[in-house]
């Protein structure tokens, strides 16, 4: 790989774009000072970013931008290097590698960009690519003037670090650093494990003690199990023995049962025999006539019944006969009466007929008179007929006129009235209209006032509704409360009743001994101090344990608990003096304290220690301890029997089993003493509760009533308001429609008024007409009256009026007579009707009599029949009675025999019964024994399995039971001494031990790890040193060679501390030809340059790179040395491309071509190139 071309744009003195081609050989760049030779090297440094360790000749990057022409300074600079990569030294698959760097200056600063083959990359990327082609800053690819002198002036350590970098020591340092941090982590872990270890060890130490104790305890427990096993074995043996004896017992009982059975059978047969003969006899008796006797008796009874029934019928018939007679008599009397009446009526009729006749004749007489008068009047009348006719005509005319006038007056009145009415109507209408107008005017204000009222009402309703809600919720709450209270109350009342019953029962049945009674009585009267009461009084128990605990306490129930022994002595003295008997006193100050007992509650059926089931004040504990000791309460006798041996037990039903094995039990026999103390207290408390709840309930109910009252009130109020609202709403509607309605009304009224006015006018017209007519009629009537007066004067002298008067009188008389005739005729008719009715009645009565007679005859006949039947029946009865007495006599003997037999049978039955009772008793006993046997068998199995569990052979030698008991007791004591024991300690000790082991192994692992890391670090050190030494040796060898070549002298690189090179630096030791070994500082400039260049060349030789650029490295060399350096470069060109800036003739001569640099224009470098043959 080599540089093919460098292109500068605006870089330093390259004002334009300048391309410089290069070849893979030795090129010098020459030209006068200040013409820009070194800027080419700077450009290479710039584009490759190799300026990190050595400074480029510019203060700032922006100074690199061309600045020749002040007027138009460009804002960027760019340098591009094209590498030929045909040998693929750069691992990129292109013939050419192009690297570009560009800096751009902006107002805010400058920006630097790198491009690799046209792609934007970072400086690091560029470095990485270059490093792959062995181009590195430390490799002295680009050597500036200053670099040469700096190698001389830098400290030895800095110089050594150049070797470090070339050797790649940093890599080992990094690895070492990582290892060290790993080491730190491991160290921390070890520390932590150490802390935990310490803690766990302490824990283990602590647990060890507990574990030892637990192990001891376990051993004791095992022994105890064994010894308890011995006891069980003893019990097993006992049980077996008992079983054997029970088997024997059962055998003997079974044989005696058999005997009993035989006897029973015998007796039964006897009895049955007797029963049979008794039955035979009874049958015989029945056959012999008992049946007949009974039948006859029945017949007699029925006959007698029939007779009496017949007699009753006869009586009834007699009574009916009497009745018929009386009715018949009454009918006859009636007939007589009616006949009288008929006669009377006949007389009256004839009388009336006479009267009719006379009246009729009178009437015809009058008629004759009238006719005579009539003829006379006719005569007279004919004379005055004309006048009278006229008069009559006039009179009629007057009359009609008057009538017409009257009619007119009435019409006038009517019209007047109508007019008045119309006027009133007009007034009414006018006032109505006035009213309507004022109403219409006021409707707006009315509406607003009504609406205001409505709003008020709605508001009120709202607030009331809220009130109701509150009240309702209050009510619901109260109801809940009341319900709760009532429930509680009921519960308490039930409790009260129950407890009261119990207390009463307890009190009624409490029968202390006389002595105790006296003591308690005396205590009540404060006669004896220090007395607390009896055990029964002081303890209270759950009802279900009452029986068991009562039995367990036994006679000690009435032991009297006293404060001190002195009090007891005083009480005893009291009893003695009164000779009242004996009593037990329990002085609390001297009583034995309660001893702890082990819990047996895990055993089947065990309820607990009796003393634990009684409630009492703690100070009374010694007294109750005395009473109950270690008595156990067990649920059933069966369970108790399983536990038997060494335990005092009482069952819930009251069976008592003593430690000795004695068993007490049977039917309940109330000792009369039971615990009641707490019940009484409870009773008082419950009573208090009841009172409390009762008053609370009534208070709540009162409150509820009040609330409900409120609710009703509020509802009523709301209702009223609602009504008011609907009224008001109607009012509003009414008012709203008022205007229109009123307008209509006014219109209508106006129409009415007009009509009325019209009709009034009409009426007035009519009125005027009528008045005129009236006047006319008046006048006409006056003229008629005058004429009548005149005619009447003419008629005054005639007798006609007299005759008329007479005729009228006769007419009157005739009318009177005619009425009379009608009356009499009616009377006669009525009388005839009465008569007909009476005759009909007589006929009816006759019919009745006839039917009664028939009835009488039939009754008589029936009576006769019945009498005959009675006679017949009486005969039958007599017969039957005779047969009956006969039968009685026959049966008497046999019945006597039967009585005897019955007695015999009863006796036999009694004997049989007694035998059966005995038999049943025996079989019951047998069953009890069998039950016992079953229990024992079960016990044996259980005990055997228990033994098996405890690992004891039945054949094992068993120590004496007393020895066993003592041993168990001592084991228990030893165990108690050890308590409390943490049995978990055994496991915990093991667990903690395991954990300790685990931790230790972890610590070991960590330790190993640490060792390994340390080892690795050491290795890194070695590797690092090896790498360094290799590089150092390689470079040193090259240095010695090159220094000799360049100066003919001897030189070498010397480590300050060859054993530990990193502790010291690197010194260049040089001895130029024919000179003594010199320190660098003492060398001439040329010598220094030579030495430094030798170092640079040796690095190049040890690690060759593809190209090198040197900037006037031969400046300070004399001619000969310059030639040697040039020769050196020329030699190296075989391996690499060299671009060397130089003004020295030997260097230019050595190069294959020369690039000339000049500054022909101001500040712009111009390039020319010459290839010399």
């Amino acid at each position: 790989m080599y540089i093919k071309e460098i292109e500068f744009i605006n870089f330093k003195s390259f004002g334009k774009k300048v391309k410089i081609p290069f070849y893979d050989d030795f090129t010098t760049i020459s030209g006068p000072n200040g013409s820009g030779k070194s800027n080419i090297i700077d450009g290479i440094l710039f584009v490759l970013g190799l300026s990190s360790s050595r400074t480029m000749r510019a203060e700032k990057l922006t100074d690199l931008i061309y600045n020749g022409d002040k007027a138009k300074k460009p804002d960027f600079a760019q340098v591009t290097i094209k590498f030929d990569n045909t040998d693929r030294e750069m691992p990129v698959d292109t013939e050419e590698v192009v690297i570009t760097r560009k800096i751009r200056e902006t107002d805010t600063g400058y920006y630097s960009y790198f491009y690799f083959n046209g792609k934007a990359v970072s400086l690091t990327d560029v470095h990485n690519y270059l490093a792959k082609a062995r181009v590195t800053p430390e490799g002295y690819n680009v050597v500036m003037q200053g670099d040469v002198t700096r190698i001389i002036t830098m400290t030895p350590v800095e110089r050594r670090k150049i070797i470090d970098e070339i050797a790649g020591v940093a890599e080992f340092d990094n690895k070492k650093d990582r290892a060290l941090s790993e080491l730190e982590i491991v160290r921390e872990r070890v520390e932590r494990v150490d802390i935990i270890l310490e803690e766990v060890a302490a824990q283990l130490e602590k647990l060890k003690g507990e574990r030892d104790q637990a192990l001891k305890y376990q051993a004791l427990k095992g022994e105890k199990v064994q010894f308890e096993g011995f006891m069980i074995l003893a019990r097993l043996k006992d049980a077996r023995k008992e079983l054997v004896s029970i088997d024997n017992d059962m055998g003997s009982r079974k044989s005696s049962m058999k005997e009993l059975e035989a006897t029973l059978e015998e007796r039964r047969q006897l009895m049955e025999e007797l029963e049979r003969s008794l039955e035979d006899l009874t049958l015989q008796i029945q056959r012999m006539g008992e049946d007949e006797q009974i039948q006859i008796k029945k017949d007699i009874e029925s006959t007698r019944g029939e007779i009496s029934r017949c007699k009753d019928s006869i009586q009834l018939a007699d009574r009916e006969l009497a009745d018929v007679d009386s009715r018949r008599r009454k009918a006859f009397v009636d007939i007589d009466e009616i006949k009288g009446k008929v006669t009377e009526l006949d007389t009256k009729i004839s009388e009336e007929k006479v009267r009719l006749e006379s009246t009729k004749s009178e009437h015809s007489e009058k008629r004759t008179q009238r006719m005579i008068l009539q003829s006379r009047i006719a005569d007279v009348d004919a004379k005055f007929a004309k006048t009278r006719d006229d008069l009559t005509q006039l009179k009629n005319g007057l009359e009609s006129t008057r009538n017409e006038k009257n009619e007119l007056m009435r019409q006038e009145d009517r019209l007047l009235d109508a007019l008045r009415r119309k006027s009133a109507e007009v007034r009414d209408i006018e006032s109505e209209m006035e009213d309507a107008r004022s109403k219409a005017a006021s409707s707006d204000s009315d509406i607003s006032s009504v609406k205001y009222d409505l709003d008020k009402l709605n508001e009120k309703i709202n607030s009331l509704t809220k009130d109701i809600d509150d009240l309702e919720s209050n009510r619901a709450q109260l109801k809940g409360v009341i319900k709760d209270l009532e429930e509680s109350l009921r519960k308490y009342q039930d409790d009260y009743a129950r407890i009261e019953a119990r207390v009463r029962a307890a009190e009624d049945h409490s029968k202390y001994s006389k002595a105790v009674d006296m003591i308690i009585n005396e205590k009540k009267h404060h006669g004896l101090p220090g007395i607390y009461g009896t055990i029964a009084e002081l303890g209270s128990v759950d009802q279900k344990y009452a029986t068991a605990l009562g039995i367990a306490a036994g006679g000690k129930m009435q032991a009297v608990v006293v404060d001190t022994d002195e009090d007891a002595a005083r009480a005893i003295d009291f009893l003695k003096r009164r000779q009242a008997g004996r009593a037990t006193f329990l002085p609390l100050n001297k009583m034995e304290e309660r001893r702890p007992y082990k819990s047996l509650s895990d055993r089947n059926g065990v309820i607990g220690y009796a003393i634990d089931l009684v409630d009492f004040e703690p100070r009374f504990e010694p007294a109750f301890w005395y009473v109950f000791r270690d008595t156990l309460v067990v649920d059933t006798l069966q369970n108790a029997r399983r536990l038997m041996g060494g335990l005092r037990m009482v069952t819930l039903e009251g069976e008592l089993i003593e430690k000795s094995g004695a068993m007490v039990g049977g039917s309940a026999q109330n000792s009369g003493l039971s615990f009641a103390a707490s019940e009484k207290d409870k009773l008082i408390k419950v009573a208090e509760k009841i009172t409390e709840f009762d008053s609370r309930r009534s208070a709540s109910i009162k409150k509820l009533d009040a609330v409900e009252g409120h609710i009703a009130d509020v509802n009523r109020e709301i209702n009223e308001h609602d009504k008011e609202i609907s009224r008001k709403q109607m009012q509003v509607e009414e008012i709203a429609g008022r205007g229109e309605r009123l307008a209509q009304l006014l219109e209508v009224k106006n129409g009415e008024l007009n009509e009325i006015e019209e009709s009034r006018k009409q009426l007035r017209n009519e009125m005027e007409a009528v008045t005129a007519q009236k006047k006319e009629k008046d006048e006409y009537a006056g003229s008629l009256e005058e004429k009548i007066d005149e005619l009447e004067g003419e008629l005054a002298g005639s007798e006609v009026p007299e005759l008329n008067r007479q005729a009228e009188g006769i007419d009157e008389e005739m009318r009177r007579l005619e009425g009379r005739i009608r009356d009499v005729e009616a009377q006669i008719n009525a009388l005839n009707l009465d008569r007909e009715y009476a005759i009909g009645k007589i006929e009816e009565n006759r019919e009745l009599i006839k039917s009664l007679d028939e009835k009488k005859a039939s009754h008589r006949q029936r009576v006769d029949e019945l009498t005959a039947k009675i006679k017949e029946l009486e005969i039958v009865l007599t017969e039957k009675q005779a047969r009956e007495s006969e039968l009685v006599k026959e049966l008497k003997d046999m019945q006597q025999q039967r009585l005897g037999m019955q007695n015999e049978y009863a006796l036999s039955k009694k004997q049989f019964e007694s035998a059966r009772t005995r038999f049943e008793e025996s079989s019951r006993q047998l069953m009890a024994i069998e039950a016992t046997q079953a229990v024992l068998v079960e016990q044996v199995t259980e005990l055997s399995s228990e033994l098996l569990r405890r690992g004891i052979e039945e054949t094992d030698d068993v120590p004496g039971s007393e020895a066993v008991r003592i041993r168990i007791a001592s084991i228990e004591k030893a165990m108690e001494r050890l308590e409390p024991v943490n049995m978990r300690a055994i496991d915990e000790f093991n667990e903690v031990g395991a954990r300790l082991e685990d931790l230790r192994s972890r610590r070991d692992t960590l330790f190993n790890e640490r060792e390994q890391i340390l080892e690795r670090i050491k290795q890194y050190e070695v590797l690092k040193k090896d790498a360094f030494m290799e590089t150092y040796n390689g470079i040193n060898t090259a240095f010695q060679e090159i220094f000799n070549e360049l100066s003919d002298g001897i030189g070498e690189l010397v480590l300050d501390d060859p054993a530990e090179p990193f502790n010291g630096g690197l010194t260049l030791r040089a001895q130029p030809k024919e000179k003594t070994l010199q320190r660098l500082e003492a060398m001439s400039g040329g010598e220094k340059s030579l030495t430094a260049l030798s170092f640079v060349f040796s690095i190049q030789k040890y690690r060759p790179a593809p190209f090198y650029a040197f900037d006037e490295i031969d400046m300070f060399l004399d001619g000969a040395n310059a030639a040697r350096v040039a020769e050196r470069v020329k030699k190296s060109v075989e391996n690499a491309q060299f671009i060397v800036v130089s003004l020295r003739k030997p260097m230019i001569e050595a190069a294959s071509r020369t690039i000339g640099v000049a500054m022909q224009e101001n500040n712009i470098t111009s390039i020319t190139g010459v290839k010399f043959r």
Partner: protein
Amino acid sequence: RVAITTDEVLGIAHEEDILGRVARLNHVLDSVFEEHESVVFSELMGEDRSENIMTYVSLLFLATEKKIWLQQEELFGELFIYPS
């Protein structure tokens, strides 16, 4: 920078004598330019490679001093020299 001693500078000057060469070349070129408008570098070259090199360097000095103008169509091609 390491100071350059007088001896060293004198040593180089003595041996290579650039300035002398420049002055002499300037003189030569002045007379050439009296007859010719320009001259090419190949005409100035002789047999001695070393002398040719020094001539080229001297031309660079003269160009920088703006006494002549160097022009090249193509790098490493023919170099034309004009009076400035």
